[in-house]
């Protein structure tokens, strides 16, 4: 690993100033992804700025009923919070489906959405990758695509975003609060992550030196009937092949409203607005759920590759969404 300087700043403002002033600097949160990248040579920063103890690590209830989650809160603590478990079960379930107990203790709410793709070619510095080295080419296209995108990919990159938490946040209309060189701002969570387009090296809309300080979860009764369904290649400790975060409101057998996001299928958590639209006013039935999935998946394109590529993700996602909504609709609202 390339040696780097380490800075433990006094506060978040100093952290932001330090990183903003140095194009070769990075923030270090829980380190569950960055430390791997340091060892592998995927990241070779000159300066690592530690955030330990600098970011809010509590969950605060705002006047409008929203929850403000400090960026320093651990994934474990967020998953266990009674308010989250009661009001946003999809978020608690998503967090608990990710990684392992040890990693969830280290990982932070601010760092989790900023983890990078686990594309095997991105993580291997001996293979070309447009995300790691713009213009070098995409090794995943035509390679091992089992864990790659079927939605929103480009000819430059077919990687997927690995976070489970982010999928729930995207469904829940969360907002990201940041502190950057230009001050504070708030970004809708669904606008945090980018699709790869012709600049796959940029994962998010954040500027260099911009730091996530908190995530706000607006109050929304619909989220009480919500769930996260993750499908993966082993029972635990694996990234999603596909995942569904869903919240649903049903009255008299008719779907009044829905919030849906997909994971494991795109460069960003995929908010499925077309599926939501198709569900509103439809009968709560498998036929409606499948139609909603089809509405969202009309533009889905499998990535051909070794072992048959990833075409299976399209029927799998349709079936997983259907199963998730069926279970939710059949459940009494609490």
């Amino acid at each position, binding site marked *: 690993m390339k*040696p780097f300087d380490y800075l433990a700043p006094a506060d978040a403002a100093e952290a932001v100033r330090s990183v903003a002033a140095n194009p070769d600097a990075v923030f270090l949160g829980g380190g569950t992804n960055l430390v791997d990248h340091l060892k592998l040579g995927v990241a070779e920063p000159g300066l690592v700025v530690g955030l330990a103890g600098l970011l809010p690590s509590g969950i605060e209830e705002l006047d409008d009923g929203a929850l403000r989650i400090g960026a320093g809160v651990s994934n474990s603590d967020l998953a266990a919070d009674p308010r989250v478990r009661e009001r946003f079960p999809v978020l608690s379930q998503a967090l608990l489906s990710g990684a392992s107990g040890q990693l969830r203790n280290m990982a932070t709410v601010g760092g989790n959405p900023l983890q990078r793709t*686990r594309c095997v*070619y991105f993580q*291997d510095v001996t293979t070309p990758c447009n995300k790691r080295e713009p213009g070098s080419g995409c090794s995943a296209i035509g390679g091992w695509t089992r864990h790659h995108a079927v939605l929103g990919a480009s000819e430059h990159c077919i990687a997927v975003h690995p976070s489970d938490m982010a999928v729930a946040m995207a469904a829940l209309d969360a907002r990201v609060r940041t502190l950057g060189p230009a001050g504070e701002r708030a970004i809708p969570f669904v606008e945090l992550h980018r699709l790869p387009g012709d600049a796959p090296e940029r994962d998010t809309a954040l500027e260099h030196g911009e730091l996530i300080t908190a995530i706000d979860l607006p109050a929304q009764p619909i989220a009480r009937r919500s769930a996260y369904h993750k499908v993966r*290649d*082993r029972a635990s400790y694996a990234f999603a092949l596909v995942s569904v975060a869903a919240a649903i409101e049903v009255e008299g057998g008719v779907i009044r409203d829905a919030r849906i996001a997909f994971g494991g299928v795109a460069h960003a958590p995929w908010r499925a607005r077309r599926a939501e639209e198709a569900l509103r006013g439809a009968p709560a039935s498998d036929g409606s759920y499948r139609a909603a999935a089809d509405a969202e998946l009309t533009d889905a394109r499998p990535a051909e590759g*070794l*072992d048959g590529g990833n075409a*299976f993700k399209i029927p799998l996602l349709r079936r*997983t969404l259907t199963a998730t909504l069926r279970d939710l609709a059949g459940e009494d609202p609490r």
Partner: protein
Amino acid sequence: MTFPSEPEAVGRDLPRRDGAVKVLGTATYAYETPLANAAYLHAVQATIARGRVTALDTAAAEALDGVVAVLTPGNAERLASTEDRELAVLQGEEVAFRGQVVALVVADSSEVARHGAALVRVEYAQQPHDAELRADREDLYAPESVNPDLPTDTSEGDVDAALAAAEVSVEETYTTAMYHNNPLEPHATAALWDPAGEGFLTLWDSTQGVHPTRTALASVFGLDEAQLRVVCPYVGGGFGSKGQPHVNVVLAAMAARAVPGRPVRLALTRQQMFSLTGYRTPTIQRCRLGADRDGTITAIAVDVVELTSRIKEFAEQSGVPARMMYASPNRSTTHRLAALDVPVPSWMRAPGECPGMFGPEVAMDELAERLGLDPVELRIRNEPAVEPGSGKPFSSRNLVGCLREGAVRFGWAERDPRPGVRRRGDWLVGTGVAASTYPVSRMPKSTATIRREGERYAVEIGAADLGTGTWTTLAQIAADALGVTVALVDVRIGDTDYPMASVAGGSSGMTTWGSAVVEAAGAFRAKYGSEPPDGAEASGSVQPADDRHAMHAFGAQFAEAHVHLDTGEVRVPRLLGVFAAGRIINPRTARSQFIGGMTMGLSMALHEQSVLDPRTGHVVNHDLAGYHITANADVGAIEAYWLAEDDPHVNAMGSKGIGEIGIVGTAAAVSNAVWHACGVRVRDLPITLDKVLHALEERPRH
């Protein structure tokens, strides 16, 4: 030599003698050997699969503060023997596989060594490579023999005529994936070259055999074996990948000689293990079975296609178990290899039997289905009276006993044979069975020494404990052979300073070393009687095995599989194995071996797959995030039982070796259970959800 027919210590479930130091973290593994002022090594690997190194720029690495040396083909010592091309590292510019070591950085810390390795610039003249295994390749060849030294092809009777005449037949192709052993402890070596006198090299190496490693390294470096000591008290797993030295050992020894008097340490990274420490070849198995209506098998044919590396042949004997498993008057087996530009394949738990019992044991289930016969009964009906091929009587063969006992314990009698008709919640439920087998092997050489030390007895032999229990089980054998209480026996293993011992491989350890200990104890008692004085000492060596009998262990494995109706996810909540493996030396460590093997078999069934990208020639999922092994949550109830088997022919203890049989047949049992659950025959491992999804799409949910 005699061994009590009703032993005192053997058969007791004594706890591991090495358990406490391992739990406390005080057991020293190779990399942790206390050595002052050690230098650290990191290898630079080729990024092409075939070609030549045309330029190596080491200036930036050498300029780095803390870098001691950079070894390259240009300055590395010439090895005395380059016959084993896997070990002939840094001897030339040719690149034969991606990941091959092309330079080695020696530095004051592991971090600097790794940084230095990243700074070495390598230029290549790249040639087109070929890393794709297919059964229709035109360059497949028949090796002269398959491992360990068995005929490549066999043929009895007329398979084609028998198949043409068969009332019922199965003809399918099955595949197993490429697998990497992935022991928890990476391949690691520490080395010290003492410049005094003629020179003396000490290696602390994570190995399955200190003496075989010494022999190999002495040959590579042109040393007298007396100039070389290999030490390895503890091994964090090997599963065959530490059964012979890989390039890390040569690199450490080379670097130690380059910095004489200074110790060096090398631990491969997990990623490096995927190209430098061996793996199991993928297999393509065409299996054909023919039978009469009553289930009497009339033809068995297995044709296997595998890969090997272009620089070193390794011919996995996957067709071998089909030669002896079931009776049939007509039988043929063949092995064909493709020599590719890939890393060198090597030993992995139950080589031959593990992959080679997948295709045939699924084919048996398919045959049972077509016959409308219970798969347990089909196997029982085709039990051979003597070993097919050789015609030798079995020393003991209790496959039928295992099948019957397992069927009772598993509740097989209530099984409805129809596939796809049982549902529990959102899951389809099925059960399956497959047979296991593994040969009983005895290595030709091993010696033990027993010495009275005060009131105690010391047993010395250069054996290995890979986590298997050797520290404990050899003490049990020695105690009974000496007629003393086991608490008085000290075992010393894992060092070439002790008498020569064979490799811990092929499930031969206990048979071989235990026999040597029994011989030594016999000599000791004959010499000193029951009151040996302090310092009394005797040695004994393993004697040739009985060659009048065919000797194999057998087993039967039962699996319950669940397939999710919506997602196709496969879970295996229950595995049950019954084994007939002679006398069990220690039920506690034996159970761990059996369920460990079965867990690894489950892992093979559902998860493991090294994905070799033919465009680059390397395994792209080369870490434990990408290469899935079964996690705790994947293992439900797992039960291992064994029959009380009295086999007077295998060895003095009556034991058969149990390190490998547990992995044999598991994947077939799971595949058969998945078929029973959802009606899909998954003939290509691993059994992932995409392989059953199409059937769920066609199935009405309610």
